[in-house]
């Protein structure tokens, strides 16, 4: 019974914690500009993230290692340092984007500029991490994040054509704005398969002391949690396509995205959007700060764990404090939060192969996985999606930069 409750909580928190600033921004922009035609990109990203999250849980359960720790041991520090540094840099950019998302939500609500919220929001984030346990961080924000289900309900209120929804799941190329379309494909996949997600999940499995009896639970949580989470991302595209596109509104700034739930809920729609943005971004910022501190501590062999008191894991606590301070500074500088988000997501897709491919090697190494090594099908799905997205990112990021000048 306890395990069933644990599975249910795992699924619910995966759903509540799925959306972040990247998913909201990329999906809103995609729906407003291209209607339902980019639903397939979320589907592709969700399939890949289901495999990666299931693998990361299985890896920690079977090997007793976290991914970062094992990559360093398996490939040596010299080969590990470049992808590690790239992943940390992306984590910092995405953390800044998440903090920026919370600040933008507060700006939408109060009219006070987002930069002025950078320090209070960073302090609130830091204090919560300093005082809370892992379960409070993992479950608290994710349960509040269930407010994002309002996007799913809005589909029924606005009324979507099932045939058009199904057509959006088939990959296609539009007749115009192909460069921007491909850039959005990359950003959507980057937002869906952020490496911090599976690095955090892997460390979480160790923090929660999962043993081999959790292998099935891990599979169920990864599959159902990520599937329903992906549905919420799709719902954002659908709502933007139904509410903003017919009015000729494209999402270039969050001020435009904030209008997307008003046709469905009237006056409540604006506040539901603000609450969804703030809670989703704050939850993701908590996970990102921890995932970055986990990665650094595991790479250098330091004591780590959110369940430890800060003085028992001083370097771990210092690391997340430094990450939050640096991300707060990026927001304070005043970089455009929407542009920062979109480019962070595209760069995430670019560096994804650097973490995902060595991880696949580990998943096929019987010294770590014993009889639980990956199937060929799992390897093929993840390798194909990650490599294709990486190639697409190499081509589309410079083209988007040229086109947006």
């Amino acid at each position, binding site marked *: 019974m306890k395990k069933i409750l644990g599975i249910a909580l795992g699924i619910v928190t995966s759903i509540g914690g799925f959306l972040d600033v990247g998913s909201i921004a990329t999906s809103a922009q995609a729906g407003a500009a291209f209607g339902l035609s980019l639903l397939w990109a979320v589907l592709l990203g969700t399939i890949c993230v289901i495999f990666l999250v299931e693998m990361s849980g299985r890896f920690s359960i079977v090997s007793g290692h976290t991914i970062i720790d094992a990559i360093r041991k398996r490939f040596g520090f010299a080969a590990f340092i470049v992808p590690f540094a790239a992943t940390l840099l992306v984590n910092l950019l995405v953390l800044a984007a998440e903090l920026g998302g919370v600040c933008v939500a507060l700006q939408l609500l109060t009219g006070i500029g987002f930069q002025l919220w950078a320090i209070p929001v960073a302090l609130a984030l830091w204090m919560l991490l300093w005082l809370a346990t892992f379960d409070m961080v993992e479950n608290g924000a994710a349960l509040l994040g269930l407010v994002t289900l309002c996007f799913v309900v809005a589909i029924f209120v606005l009324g979507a054509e099932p045939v058009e929804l199904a057509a959006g799941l088939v990959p296609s190329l539009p007749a*115009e*704005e*192909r460069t921007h379309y491909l850039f959005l494909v990359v950003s959507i996949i980057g937002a869906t398969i952020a490496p911090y997600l599976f690095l955090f999940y892997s460390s979480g499995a160790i923090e929660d002391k999962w043993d081999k009896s959790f292998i099935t639970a891990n599979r169920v949580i990864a599959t159902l949690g990520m599937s329903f989470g992906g549905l919420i991302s799709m719902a954002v595209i659908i709502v933007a396509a139904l509410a903003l596109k017919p009015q000729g509104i494209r999402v270039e700034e969050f*001020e435009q995205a904030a209008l997307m739930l008003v046709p469905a809920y009237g006056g409540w729609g604006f506040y539901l959007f603000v609450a969804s943005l703030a809670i989703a971004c704050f939850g993701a910022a908590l996970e990102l700060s921890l995932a970055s501190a986990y990665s650094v501590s595991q790479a250098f062999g330091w004591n780590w764990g959110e369940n430890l008191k800060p003085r028992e894991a001083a370097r771990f606590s210092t690391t997340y404090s430094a990450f939050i301070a640096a991300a707060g500074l990026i927001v304070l500088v005043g970089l455009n939060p929407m542009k920062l988000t979109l480019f962070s997501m595209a760069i995430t897709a670019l560096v994804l192969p650097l973490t995902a491919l060595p991880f696949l090697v580990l998943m096929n190494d019987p010294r770590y996985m014993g009889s639980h090594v990956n199937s060929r099908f799992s390897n093929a799905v993840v390798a194909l999606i990650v490599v294709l997205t990486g190639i697409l990112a190499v081509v589309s990021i410079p083209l*988007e930069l040229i086109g*947006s000048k």
Partner: protein
Amino acid sequence: MPCRCSAGRRAVVAIALAALAACGDQDEQKLKSARSWSATALVVARHWEQGEVPTAYAKRALRKASEELANGALPEAAEPVDELREAVERGDRAAVRRLITEIAGR
């Protein structure tokens, strides 16, 4: 049989052509962006007039729309948006309603 270097050259040419196309799209993009900001201003004003969005948000969104329009492909559309913003700042819903009808009719 084509050699590897010609395949590489073809890829470079394809990327260069795509880059040129991306540059060529810029004017079209700017026009779409301006139309979008114009539509945003109208929708924000309409929702504010119906009490569906807070005044602080409406003022900020209208100021942003006006700035984007002034610096974009439709600078002449910035002035009516400024009028909308001023009416919102005064809390004058009747003026906002009248301006929306006027702007939508243009």
